[in-house]
């Protein structure tokens, strides 16, 4: 409200031609209003399939919609419904038993030794796989602009161009 979220929502409605809760005719966009995305430092912000885009204004919203429609952001924004692209390879399984038999400090009585487990490589899309091959570890896709927002620690909004820094990706 303080930083113009309603104005942005107004613009979004006109750009997409739908009200909050509606879906465009081509089924590409559904618009919702949300309170608190925990990115107040970059308000107003937008999330697309749970990937954050901060410091939005009508112009950057239009740019975002264009890029999404053209598929330019497919690497960063996962398909709808995908929460995490990393598989759990340690800790509890659903059944409640530890796969590593740790089970707490009191359970180790037989002088067990460390048994490092393999980090299961998630299956990243082809674009990310090249980065993983470069020794960067499992290919973790990064929402580039969120990264920039994340590093905006010194109060600074990221330097001009910093928010587009694709070298962070990988």
């Amino acid at each position, binding site marked *: *409200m*303080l*930083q113009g979220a*309603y*104005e942005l*929502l*107004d613009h979004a409605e006109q750009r997409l031609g739908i009200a*909050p809760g509606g879906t465009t005719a081509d089924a590409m966009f559904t618009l919702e209003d949300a*309170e*608190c*995305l*925990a*990115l*107040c*430092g970059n*308000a107003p912000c937008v999330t697309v399939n*749970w*990937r954050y885009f901060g410091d939005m204004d009508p112009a950057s919203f239009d740019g975002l919609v264009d890029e999404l429609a053209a598929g330019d952001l497919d690497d960063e924004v996962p398909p709808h419904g*995908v*929460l*995490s*692209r*990393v598989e*759990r*390879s*340690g*800790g509890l399984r659903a059944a409640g038993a*530890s796969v*590593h*038999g*740790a*089970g*707490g400090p*009191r359970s*180790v009585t037989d*002088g*067990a*030794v*460390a*048994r*490092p*487990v393999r*980090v299961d490589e*998630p299956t990243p899309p082809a674009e990310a796989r090249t980065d993983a091959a470069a020794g*960067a*570890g*499992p290919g*973790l896709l*990064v929402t580039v602009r*969120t*990264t920039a927002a*994340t*590093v*905006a*620690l*010194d*109060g600074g*909004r990221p330097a001009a161009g910093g928010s587009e820094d694709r070298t*962070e990706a*990988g």
Partner: protein
Amino acid sequence: MTVTDAPRIVTRRIGRPRSWTLESYLRDGGYDGLRKALTMTPEQVHDDVNVANILGRGGAGFEAGRKWGMMRPAEPVYLAINGDESEPATFKDHMLIEGDPHLLIEGALICAYAIRADQVFLFVRGEFPLGIERLQHALNEAYAYGAVGRDIFGSGWSIDVVVHPGAGAYICGEETALLESLEGKRGYPRIKPPFFPAAIGLYGAPTIVNNVETVANLPWVLLEGGSAFAALGEGRSKGTKLLALAGHVKRPGNYELEFAKVSFRELIYDPRLGGGIRDDNELKAFIPGGVSSPWLGPEHLDVALANEKIAEVGSMAGSGSVVPMDDTTCTVRAAWRIVRFFHRESCGQCTPCREGGGWLEKILRRIEQGQGREADLDLLMDVCDNISPGVRWPPAQTTICVLGPSMPPAVAAGLTRFRDEYLTHIRQGRCPFPPDRIPRRMAGV
């Protein structure tokens, strides 16, 4: 008084390239705090944390070491880390989880070691998928590295850690609702006292629930010593505090500053920090500690950012999020927006919050839309009084948790400080602040 000479404890690695990877973390001395903790006994670690006197960073400000000491001796013992940050204006844990997940894991492990926990749950808000992704990936790395799992670093101590994404409810940030949620139930807060989670928590076992920022301090405390931490800050407020500055300032963002050494004026106006109010407008009021805290005015700018100092002027430091509002802000609209959030997020367990929240929201909306009556002002206070008897600070409550009593402060602050503004809305039959299209939006959204 300088504002930047204190060391950065929890944010020192934020902003480094790929700061969320194990490789980067180890380069910066990662897991040294845990290694050091494992050479000590759990009691020694606990003592060190007691010396550091870390106040819980989630909002309530309870000493972490004291909380650990209140635990009922039993087996098993659980540790839950509260990363369900979702109060409007708060965005510090978001940054920590995404920017430095290994720090969170190391801090959680040190805490788990000190309290002899059998299992650690990292409860992360479901709306942080990138954070969940990075945290889970970091955890996988930590397992492979041997920092988590069986026989950590050859010490014979073993523990499992799991990441648990929340499902998008603000109320699950309340510690007992968080435990209910972890148990797979609806996120209803539990009645406490008599049984705090340290006595009966997750699955009936003693459980410690700590905030992300609280445990993120632990690796530094272990390495530098509790007394080094206690040397920072003043009074009860020790160490550094991550302050989330948002709203009408030129440079919003997270700032880690020495606790109790910086005033609101410095935070908002210092060119290295907030940089002043946007467009050099006048400051009208500011929210000192999350939207559930009573607002303060320009006369409180010189109050130091310390838990007890803010409490003296009748508000709270809470989660450390500061929101200045300039003189173009409509306080009715701001109060309406805050109340609407809490009403939407009310779990519905207690009547005063479930029903009162709805009434407050409707009355504020009608005032903002120019259809208010002068009797509404008393009606608002009456509803507030039913949620939080006396509408005083610290709040009394008629509800199980403090979500309900989070609503009255915004309304009461508006009515006491800006009563004329409410009356103008009612007498003129419209909101005197631009832009005029917002009331239309309010009806539709």
